[in-house]
């Protein structure tokens, strides 16, 4: 991926959320009784199954829809989902792995400079919004990428987007804007 700057940034993916379907009805009681590492939540109507490798937590509904969270990459998510489907197959259900989709990717990134949030928000209205009384970070939403970036004054970023590519593109897009606001300007200006 070519970046507009020579220096490099590490974008660390902390969570990938994916969904898939098993195309068959699942009996949650059976899964709860016979499955390993499961937690049954009858009040909500789902079963939580945790896999060790890759480290994934799956919410299983009786309709056959399953949500996997906790993966650290898209491939990991797919592998975990397939492993989960295999587990369910072994329990006796006629599972057909289908409609796998990565729904959300959460990544963190750290800039090696502080960011002046008020300047950043003023330069990027209305895409950026910042309410210091409510949340310490400024929120920057990129509509066409469907990504949301939370910018903290320490230089940390939290990026959420529909896939890893969008997340990386979002960071690349926002970097120059952050670079501009890295120091408080010396001239007399609004304080915040």
């Amino acid at each position, binding site marked *: 991926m070519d*970046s507009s700057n020579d220096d490099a940034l590490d974008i660390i993916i902390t969570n990938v959320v994916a969904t898939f379907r098993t195309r068959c009805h699942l009996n949650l009681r059976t899964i709860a009784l016979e499955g390993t590492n499961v937690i049954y939540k009858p009040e909500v109507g789902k079963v939580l199954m945790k896999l060790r490798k890759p480290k994934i937590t799956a919410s299983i509904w009786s309709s056959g829809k399953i949500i996997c969270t906790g993966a650290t990459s898209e491939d990991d998510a797919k592998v975990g989902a397939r492993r989960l489907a295999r587990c369910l197959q072994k329990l006796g259900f006629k599972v057909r792995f289908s409609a796998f989709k990565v729904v959300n990717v959460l990544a963190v990134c750290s800039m090696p400079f502080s960011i002046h949030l008020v300047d950043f928000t003023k330069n990027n209205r209305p895409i950026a919004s910042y309410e210091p009384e409510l949340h310490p970070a400024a929120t920057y939403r990129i509509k066409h990428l469907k990504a949301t970036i939370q910018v903290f004054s320490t230089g940390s970023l939290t990026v959420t987007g529909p896939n890893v590519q969008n997340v990386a593109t979002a960071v690349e897009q926002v970097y120059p804007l952050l670079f501009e606001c890295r120091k408080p300007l010396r001239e007399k200006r609004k304080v915040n």
Partner: protein
Amino acid sequence: MSRSALRCPGCDSSNIIDDDLYAQVQLVCVDCGAVVSEGSLADEHVEGSGVNFVRAVTSAKKPCPNLIKGLQRVKVICQTLRVHSGIENLSQSHYQQAYQHDSFINVSLQKKDVLAGCSVLVSCRLLNWPITMGTIGCLVDADLEMVGAVYREMVKILNIVAPIINVTDVMEAHVQEYKISSLHVPEDLAENPKDLTKRAVALVELAADTWIVTGRRPIPIMMAAIYLAWQSLKPTKQRLKFSLDKFCQIAKVNKHRPAMKRIAEMKEVLCKLGKEIPWVSEAVTADNIVLHVADVLQHRYTLLKRAQRSHEKAQLDNCEVSCGDSQTEDGGAPSQISDFVKETSNSTSVEQWEPHSEQGNGCDNTCTVSDPHGDSQQSQGPASNWGKRVLFAPPCVVNAKRRRVEQPELKDVTGDEEISDSEIDSYIRTPKEVRDFALNQKMLSVLKSQKS
């Protein structure tokens, strides 16, 4: 009345009159009494024009009574805050617009009350009237989260972009809350609100320049600034002994816990600048810095420049010393200092989250030094590293929380792992060991056969 046109079928007389039987219309011949025609009760001709049923039962659309009450509430809030009529009108129009939107038409009355407060807030912001969300929260008796949620929703619906409040603008209004003038407290503890505001504003501006304000809630910062300003305006022993708790008690305000941390941070900054004052001979510590606050604030820009310069000088000296020791010198050590943007030189990559602090190993100062004393800074990762390098940085960068390093789980042995050559050697017996082993086995078998 006679009807000339009709003729009685029985006697052919034209003397026919309207003789209604109760409500039924009847035309009767006078001569023979025959009923010529009668109207059907069902077709009774109604007086007046016909009216649609729906229109007959619906009344004229009156404005919703809750909307009227809400507008009244907006007016009351504006009057409590003593804002000018422009803000009042604007907030009323915002309220009306937002009220009739789908997201707010069916919410609870409490939320509609909060909406009234938020419309006042947004109008104040648009017309440059400083007011905090905390104030609105108090007025509508709701917590900050609810006010925040309603405010965000409203701003989204009405598509408003409101400017962010400036802490120094709000300061004056905030100081009014503190009952610290000579009317409320004894003379030696009293302070003129104007002086207090001026000093506190200067403190907040200094804090903003040194990364204490960005990203933090404004009210604890203001509280800390006012407390320090109050202490420094007359730094008597009595005032210096006053803790934040006691100060809030006599000023009759609620203490905010983060204010204590802000006080510590501000004192640290003031100490750093206090060290640069040329006419102060004794050491400047957190205890005696309050005495010098006036000087620091008066000459703060000069002191900031001086502090920056001495910090850079100290870094250069440090670098040279350690570079000279280990004889590894990376050219360009001075360039690191004024330039905050020095990043790790890994390639742009989207990595998996590794539990162990790989960041620490990848961290690469321009002054790469193989420091044998195990520089603890480098192991904490690049973030805290650059925080410690610069003179002023956001406090949570300087005191970075050490990430809890996950113990690497005992991975299941798969049998596919690579075995290094040295490891392989430890598994294979040397020829001498083979001979010894064979000898031992023989001796053991001889012993066994002797026994049995």
